[in-house]
């Protein structure tokens, strides 16, 4: 898989598809996902395209499927994913799918309707039953002269007359019973009182069990009312009022016996209805089962069919109307596979004439295709987020696999935090095939999951830099014994107890023999974590390290430009751009790196009083001055520095004017060659015209109209010159500012170390304060708080921050040395896996 270095060669090709076998050929190509189809009918609207009828049919089927899915969801069933991926159906299969799905939808609709009406009927019957039962309580109890127990405290009415007495009276008492929504009770009562007071008594009681409201579907405790009244007109008024309030009124049988009859009748009716309802529900469940089985496959099939027809709409018909022509971007490596797919498609559709593919030349820039596997995909995506590589430009992703985690780790260096990050990423990597991890819907989690290899490497490198900085949860690890000996210093200085009492900080002088025994084998000496001038030492070290790493990274970026210049056959740029850029960078900043290393090697603690300052030397180098107090680093430093500055300054005009002048000269040379050739014969310009794209226009113009060209030349030259001037200024100023920008490596690593230390000192230390065994118990919540804050602040916040800054360093400081990133990706036509509902 060598294409990670630069994008693959992609060519423009034409597919000649037989009308009969076009569908199956495109289906084969879609299964393999190789080509990107170009739209040959961009000006045609969607309704005027050739296969609009088929697309419409697919959409109708999809509507039916949506209805079926809705029904499934209402019934609480879950649609499983499609087990195997079916191919796109042929015409008659599609017809069958359509018929079956519509039939199922029809059945489902009918059954649902039946069920709803059965349910409504059942509810009414049960309400009636309750009404009768409750009503009996009022009308069958003999009313004592005292007040009977009232069901509702608000109602001051009770049947003041016992109906069994009513035969003795002139007035006949009638009853209205029904059911009313609980919210309307008080309004109903008030209205009744206002309208018919004195002529009725009303009592309300709640139904023992809640029932479903037909309108909203939620279950409410209905209120049963029983109104006893006398007088026909009052009765009509009451009925009208209850109509207004949407009450369900039921006929109330007068005598005990008839009530009992009605109730038993109701019981049996309810029984029968329940049985019927159960059977209906069973049938519904059966239909739903059928749907669950068949729907996933159908959906995938219809999706594929629709995609194929949309692609076929993009093709154009040739003159004889028998052949479809499609223009595709195809990777050159896959041309044989495409031919194979076409052959299979033709064979499947049973046509005798084969479809074929033919490559055509083009002057357009093809799309970029870089094949990645699950490991490299993460790194390629962070490069693509800045800009997709231009066609066949060198790809920064393979280097980012190492440099990105490394630069992250410089800003994040801590063994403990790196280990936590590494273990988290390891868990994600080991369980990457588990469906619960893959199909989570949380977007933030998916982002972390996509970058699991990235985080794995970041964690691993952070453990490494953690050992270099010697920090583990802000504590130093003493793997090797420290090289500094306090005992020797104490003996040498003979520190007395009074001296120790009055001096809070003591100096270890490395010039005294035995105090400093040589550099620590790996990383920073652990004694520095106990020193008060810890930061003084570390700052100097980290700043120099950042500058060195920055210049190496940028130099590497410039070197990558060589591959671009060679590949695009612009060798003049090697001498006229790469060389001056490299000279500028190395003469100034490469020399700074050299000074840093030279001072580290040559000067030791013995010369610490007179050690020269690199900063002052660097400033003097540019200003051509000298400072008496600052000793030179080596003999002959001043002339060397002068020479380097002159060299660097000399490279600037080369960078500024080199390429434009070269291009200008080349064009002029061709022009002077042109008219001479034209005099020879007419054949020559044609031969001239067959060169690469640019020169075709130039020679044609020169031959046809001699007058135009000088102006055109000047315009071109102005544009090239402007472009080159911008590039030069950007590069030279950029060198300085980008080098300084790398100091963020120092800044963020300092911030991380300090945050880590603050967290330990302010949180964890409180856990060690208790000296009795209770301290052990106190340590438990203290550690929990420390852990939560470590994850939240140091891992998540600092991790994201370091990630961002490492990304910025790559995108801006590294990539602007060689990367253009103006391409577009190849999006092959493939049947995407079924997206979730």
């Amino acid at each position, binding site marked *: 898989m060598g294409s990670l270095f630069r994008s693959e060669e992609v060519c423009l090709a034409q597919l000649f598809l037989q009308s009969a076998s076009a569908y199956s050929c495109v289906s084969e190509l879609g299964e393999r996902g190789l080509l990107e189809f170009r739209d040959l009918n961009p000006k045609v609207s969607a309704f005027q395209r050739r296969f609009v009828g088929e697309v419409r049919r697919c959409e109708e089927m999809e509507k039916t499927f949506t209805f079926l899915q809705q029904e499934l969801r209402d019934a609480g069933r879950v649609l499983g994913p499609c087990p195997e991926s079916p191919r796109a159906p042929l015409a008659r299969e599609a017809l069958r799918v359509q018929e079956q799905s519509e039939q199922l939808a029809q059945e489902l609709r009918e059954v649902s309707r039946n069920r709803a009406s059965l349910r409504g009927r059942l509810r009414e019957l049960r309400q009636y039953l309750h009404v009768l039962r409750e009503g009996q309580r009022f009308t069958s109890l003999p009313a004592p002269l005292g007040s009977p127990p009232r069901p509702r405290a608000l109602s001051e009415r009770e049947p003041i007359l016992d109906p069994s007495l009513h035969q003795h009276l002139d007035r006949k008492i009638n009853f209205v019973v029904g059911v009313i929504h609980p919210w309307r009770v008080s309004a109903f009562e008030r209205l009744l009182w206002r309208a018919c007071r004195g002529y009725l008594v009303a009592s309300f009681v709640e139904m023992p069990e809640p029932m479903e409201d037909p309108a909203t579907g939620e279950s409410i405790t209905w209120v049963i009312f029983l109104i006893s009244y006398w007088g026909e007109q009052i009765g009509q008024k009451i009925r009208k009022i209850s109509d207004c309030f949407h009450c369900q009124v039921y006929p109330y049988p007068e005598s005990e016996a008839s009530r009992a009859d009605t109730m038993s009748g109701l019981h049996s009716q309810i029984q029968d209805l329940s049985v019927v309802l159960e059977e209906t529900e069973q049938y519904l469940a059966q239909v739903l089962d059928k749907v669950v089985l068949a729907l996933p496959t159908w959906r995938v099939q219809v999706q594929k069919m629709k995609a194929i027809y949309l692609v076929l709409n993009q093709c154009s018909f040739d003159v004889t109307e028998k052949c479809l022509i499609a223009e595709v971007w195809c990777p050159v490596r896959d041309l044989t596979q495409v031919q194979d797919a076409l052959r299979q498609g033709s064979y499947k559709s049973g046509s005798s004439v084969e479809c074929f593919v033919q490559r055509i030349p083009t002057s357009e820039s093809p799309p970029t295709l870089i094949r990645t596997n699950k490991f490299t995909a993460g790194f390629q995506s962070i490069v693509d987020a800045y800009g997709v590589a231009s066609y066949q430009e060198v790809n920064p992703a393979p280097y980012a696999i190492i440099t990105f985690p490394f630069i992250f780790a410089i800003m994040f260096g801590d063994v403990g935090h790196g280990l936590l990050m590494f273990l988290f990423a390891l868990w994600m990597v080991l369980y990457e095939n588990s469906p619960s991890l893959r199909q989570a819907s949380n977007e933030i989690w998916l982002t972390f999951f996509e970058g699991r290899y990235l985080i794995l490497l970041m964690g691993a490198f952070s453990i490494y830099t953690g050992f270099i900085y010697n920090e583990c*949860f802000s504590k130093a690890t003493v793997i090797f014994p420290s090289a500094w000996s306090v005992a020797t210093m104490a003996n040498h200085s003979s520190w007395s107890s009074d001296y120790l009492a009055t001096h809070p900080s003591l100096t270890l002088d490395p010039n005294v023999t035995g105090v400093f025994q040589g550099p620590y084998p790996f990383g920073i000496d*652990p004694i520095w974590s106990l020193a008060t001038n810890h930061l003084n030492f570390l700052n100097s070290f980290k700043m120099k390290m950042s500058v060195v790493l920055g210049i190496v990274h940028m130099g590497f970026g410039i070197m990558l430009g060589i591959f671009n210049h060679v590949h695009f056959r612009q060798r003049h740029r090697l001498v006229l751009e790469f060389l001056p850029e490299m000279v500028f960078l190395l003469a100034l900043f490469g020399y700074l790196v050299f000074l840093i290393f030279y001072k580290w090697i040559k000067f030791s603690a013995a010369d610490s009083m007179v050690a020269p300052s690199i900063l002052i030397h660097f400033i003097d180098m540019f200003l051509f001055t000298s400072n008496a107090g600052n000793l030179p680093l080596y003999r002959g430093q001043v002339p060397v520095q002068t020479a380097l500055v002159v060299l660097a300054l000399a490279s600037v005009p080369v960078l500024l004017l080199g390429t434009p002048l070269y291009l200008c000269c080349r064009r002029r040379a061709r022009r002077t060659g042109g008219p001479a050739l034209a005099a020879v014969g007419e054949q020559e310009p044609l031969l001239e015209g067959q060169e690469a794209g640019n020169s075709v226009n130039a020679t044609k113009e020169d031959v046809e109209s001699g007058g135009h060209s000088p102006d055109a030349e000047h315009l071109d030259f102005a544009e090239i010159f402007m472009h080159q001037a911008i590039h030069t200024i950007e590069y030279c100023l950029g060198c300085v500012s980008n080098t300084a920008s790398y100091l963020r490596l120092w800044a963020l690593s300092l911030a991380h170390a300090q945050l880590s230390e603050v967290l330990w000192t302010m949180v*964890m230390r409180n*856990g060690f304060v*208790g000296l009795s065994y209770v301290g*052990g118990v106190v*340590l*438990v919540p203290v*550690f929990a708080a420390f852990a939560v804050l470590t994850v939240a602040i140091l891992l998540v916040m600092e991790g994201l921050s370091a990630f961002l800054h490492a990304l910025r360093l790559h995108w801006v400081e590294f990539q602007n040395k060689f990367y253009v990133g103006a391409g577009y990706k190849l999006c092959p036509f493939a049947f995407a896996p079924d997206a979730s509902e």
Partner: protein
Amino acid sequence: MVSLLCCGPKMAACGLVLSAWGVVMLVLLGIFFNVHSAVLIEDVPFTEEDFKDGPERIYRLYEQVSYNCFIAAGLYALLGGFSLCQGRLNKRKEYMVR
């Protein structure tokens, strides 16, 4: 019998991770305190008088802190066991619903 399940699956997982980290880190801290590591001097709650008459008193303080660390590690091991049980009960409940 009252259900023993009091945490959800995510809380049980968090508890397990925290306990594992706690056990490992506190055991290591305890060991380092026990060997009187100089890097941890700031964390030991000493007073001015502990510096008289040799390092013995400081060493006792170190050891006391290390015992506290071990106790906390033991408590975290219990917490880890509890989270593990909760996680298992959650899994069983998930299977039973089906």
